[in-house]
């Protein structure tokens, strides 16, 4: 007869599970830290971040300094130097925020599903470690990396205070927002990692959810206020209920809307610093909010991991129909044992030629049809909120979706395209494939085309959104053509580089991180650095403006923004006469079309060159004999 442990000892056992030493810093944490410590890439990444920080810092400092050099008076110059500190702090805070927000999902996206792919998860799940301990330890080891990166900018943030003009609480607010957003990204990444089959999928979903939190929540708040303030309470409810109408505070305070998005909260901190205003408590609310989401994500991740544990112990995942069938058979007494191969079957299709391409173009972005439906419903809900809360002629209705969407297109391209070859390595199917007669060209081209095909969802949603705007006669139809061209360039570019990195590196998460880093460098870091450098070297001349903007216009995000602005701005008046803002003046629609085509062609050619390089280096990177 088994004896139940007394309540007190069970409570002690539960509390022991929550001991921070075992919860966060247990054997998994130590193992992950040891592995990270052996990786050269980790040190290269940190050095790169420090270099970016140093470049931004030097350029910002020199920019402000050279501007004040022109002031003849020494006292005026010293006084003006007080303005240096806020500019440096704002620059560093934003660099830190962007770096940590991007790194967190990349680091945690593969944390659990990589263990599953390496078939080490069942062994881990048979140890006395609880799912919560596994999730927390994995999160802690990744957060340690992020904290080290955050600490790199701390000396700058604190040291710059000698110039004056920056309050300590501004730095604390900025650092807290960066770290809490990183924790939120890392926790969401862990949750999706416990659910997704691939690390890159988990990372991509995390980025989408982060984008929703940062841009979607403030929009939702605005929409709520718009609907309940202007339509329902005053007019409708009072008419119907008279004195019985409740006097509810149906308006979400502005501070709550601002605090719901860390990016808006950081913007408020930066704006306050720029204007010399005291820091409001919005950052504190936003930090707490991010930590609450993190806590929830961690709990959900451990629940998901528990499910993984059950499935790894042999319980097959059944569809509803299979469950019903099984229940009927059990009721009638005809059910015997469950044969997973009978439960998981479907009518075989005829495989087309070439087979690798046939399979690649059938790889879905969504792991299941349910996920596709949920995503479509979520998009429809967001669209509904936007169209209800904003007037159709407001430029925000086109700018926010296109800017956020284009960033997501880039993130998606960087992450999805690099998993082709490395995923084959991780599932150990590459060796078998390489012993067949599939040529390097066939393999690389199929992987690249498959990757392009998988990136259909976000561009389609954006084009559908813009189609509605066009049908509402708020934008010229040419915007659809321009956006399509703007998306093609980076998609082909990132697919090419992704295939190359995927072939070069064993782990898909490494390949994805490099592809993402490359995209960031090309479209964000290098343009900004070149602009600042030109500004300094050419000392604010027209030439520096020209070159600077020329570099800036290579970014698909800028191109997307200019495309929608040009076609949308006062559409009614400029139906036959509208222009696009360009480097030194405006461009006519034909000129802008030519520019976007040229830009997309160059980007596509670079992508194809990387794919070609992958074909040329195929034998070297796979080891296969020609």
């Amino acid at each position, binding site marked *: 007869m088994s004896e139940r442990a007394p309540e007190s000892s069970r409570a002690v056992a539960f509390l022991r599970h929550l001991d921070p030493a075992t919860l966060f810093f247990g054997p998994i944490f130590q193992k992950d830290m040891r592995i990270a410590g052996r990786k050269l890439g980790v040190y290269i990444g940190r050095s790169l971040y420090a270099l970016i920080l140093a470049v931004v810092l030097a350029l910002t400092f020199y920019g402000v300094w050279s501007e004040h050099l022109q002031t003849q008076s020494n006292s005026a110059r010293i006084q003006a130097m007080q303005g240096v500190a806020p500019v440096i702090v704002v620059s560093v805070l934003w660099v830190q925020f962007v770096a940590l927000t991007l790194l967190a999902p990349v680091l945690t996206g593969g944390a659990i599903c990589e263990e599953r792919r390496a078939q080490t998860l069942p062994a881990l799940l048979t140890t006395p470690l609880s799912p919560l301990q596994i999730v927390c330890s994995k999160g802690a080891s990744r957060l340690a990396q992020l904290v080290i990166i955050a600490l790199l900018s701390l000396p700058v943030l604190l040291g710059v205070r000698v110039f004056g003009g920056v309050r300590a609480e501004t730095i604390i607010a900025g650092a807290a927002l960066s770290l809490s957003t990183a924790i939120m990204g890392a926790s969401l990444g862990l949750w999706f990692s416990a659910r997704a*089959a691939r690390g890159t999928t988990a990372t991509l979903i995390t980025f989408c959810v982060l984008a929703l939190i940062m841009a979607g929540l403030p929009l939702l708040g605005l929409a709520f206020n718009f609907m309940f303030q202007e339509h329902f309470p005053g007019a409708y409810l009072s008419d119907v209920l008279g004195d019985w109408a409740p006097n509810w505070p149906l308006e979400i305070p502005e501070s709550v809307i601002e605090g719901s998005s860390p990016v808006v909260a950081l913007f408020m901190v930066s704006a306050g610093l720029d204007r010399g205003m005291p820091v409001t408590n919005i950052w504190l609310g936003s930090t707490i909010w991010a930590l609450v989401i993190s806590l929830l994500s961690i709990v959900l991740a451990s629940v998901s991991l528990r499910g993984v544990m059950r499935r790894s112990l042999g319980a*097959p995942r059944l569809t509803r129909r299979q469950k019903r069938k099984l229940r009927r058979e059990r009721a009638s007494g005809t059910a015997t044992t469950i044969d*997973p*191969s*009978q*439960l*998981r*079957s*479907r*009518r*075989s*299709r*005829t*495989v*087309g*030629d*070439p*087979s*690798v391409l*046939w*399979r690649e173009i*059938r*790889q879905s972005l969504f792991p299941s049809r349910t996920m596709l439906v949920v995503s479509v419903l979520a998009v429809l809900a967001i669209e509904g909120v936007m169209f209800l809360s904003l007037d159709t002629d407001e430029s925000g209705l086109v700018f926010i979706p296109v800017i956020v969407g284009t960033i997501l297109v880039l993130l998606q391209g960087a992450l999805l395209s690099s998993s082709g070859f490395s995923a*084959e390595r991780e*599932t*150990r*199917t*590459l*060796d*078998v*494939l*390489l*012993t*067949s*007669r*599939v040529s390097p060209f066939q393999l690389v081209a199929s992987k690249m085309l498959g990757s392009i095909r998988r990136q259909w969802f976000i561009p389609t949603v954006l084009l559908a959104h813009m189609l509605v705007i066009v049908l509402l006669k708020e934008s010229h139809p040419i915007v659809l053509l321009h956006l399509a061209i703007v998306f093609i360039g980076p998609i082909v570019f990132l697919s090419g580089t992704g295939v190359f990195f995927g072939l070069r590196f064993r782990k898909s998460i490494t390949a994805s991180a490099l592809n993402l880093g490359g995209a960031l460098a090309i479209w964000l870091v290098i343009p900004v650095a070149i602009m600042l450098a030109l500004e300094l070297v050419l000392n604010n001349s027209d030439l520096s403006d020209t070159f600077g903007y020329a570099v800036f216009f290579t970014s698909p995000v800028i191109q997307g923004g200019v495309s929608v602005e040009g076609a949308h701005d006062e559409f009614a008046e400029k139906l036959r006469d509208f222009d696009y803002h360009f480097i030194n003046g405006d461009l006519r629609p034909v000129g802008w079309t030519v520019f976007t085509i040229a830009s997309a062609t160059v980007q596509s050619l670079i992508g194809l060159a990387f794919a070609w390089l992958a074909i040329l280096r195929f034998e070297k990177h*796979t*080891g*296969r*004999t*020609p």
Partner: protein
Amino acid sequence: MIEISRLTKRFGDLTAVDDLSISIGAGEIFGFIGPNGAGKSTTMKVLACLLKPDQGAATVDGLSVQGDGDAIRQRIGYMPDFIGYYDDLTVDEYLQFFASAFRLPRRKRRSVVDGVLELTDLTEKRDAMVVSLSRGMSQRLGVARVLIHDPKVLLLDEPASGLDPRARIEMRSLLSELARMGKTLMVSSHILSELAEMCSSIGIIERGKLVFAGSIDDAYARVKGGERVLIRLESSEHLERIIPSVISVLSADERVASAEADADKPGAIRVTLESGEHGHHFLIERVIEGGGRIGAFEPQGVNLEDAFLSLTKGAVQ
């Protein structure tokens, strides 16, 4: 069919295969034996054109692995020790996929896929998702996959690994059937008794070096010492006194290499004859001379495990 000459493959400081030479004739079943990390899989990967050799040469059907990769891929079927599967395909689609990858004409594919499914007894699982197959079925699917382009040579790395006894027997009969069909098989396995029943020749590799290559009979002949016999004495109250006496008489005979009491079997003496001695009738006389009465007389055969243990030092890299 397979010629490996002075093959060397290094990974950094580690020499995985060191000056290895093997010759395997057409239609042979060659058992490739060695401890974990001995270099078996590396050798097979070189033959499968998945790794380039650092030194030496290897040919399959007269074609060099260093320059005739595509032609060799048409002639070989390689099954790695761990077979990864595409989790989004059914068994039938998986085989069609590789039929296309091996450039089989479209009109032939249906019949070829049906044929290999039947041969590997997977016809009923045609529409099952590959991930849902049991370990035994997965291994059979692996064999079906390597047969899809009708290769002359099969390189099978641990095909029976992780299989239950029934699945192992099925796998063994499947491989024997393939040998009867005229295929040349190079099979690595840890289950030596199965290789002994199946293989016409074996190669034993240790720390990247080939320590033995030849027929199974040759391997048995290399086992230290000659025939072995287990003698069980009739139980008696004086057994404790009789056993040392019998062992003493047996040891004194120059035809006996060693005689010792079997620790696991009370009243039993394990005798090993000198190499080359085949008759063991004289042992009966020696036992009686020592005062013992024979209960049972069991000549012990040499098996592949004995040969393996005798020829290797048990070292791994």
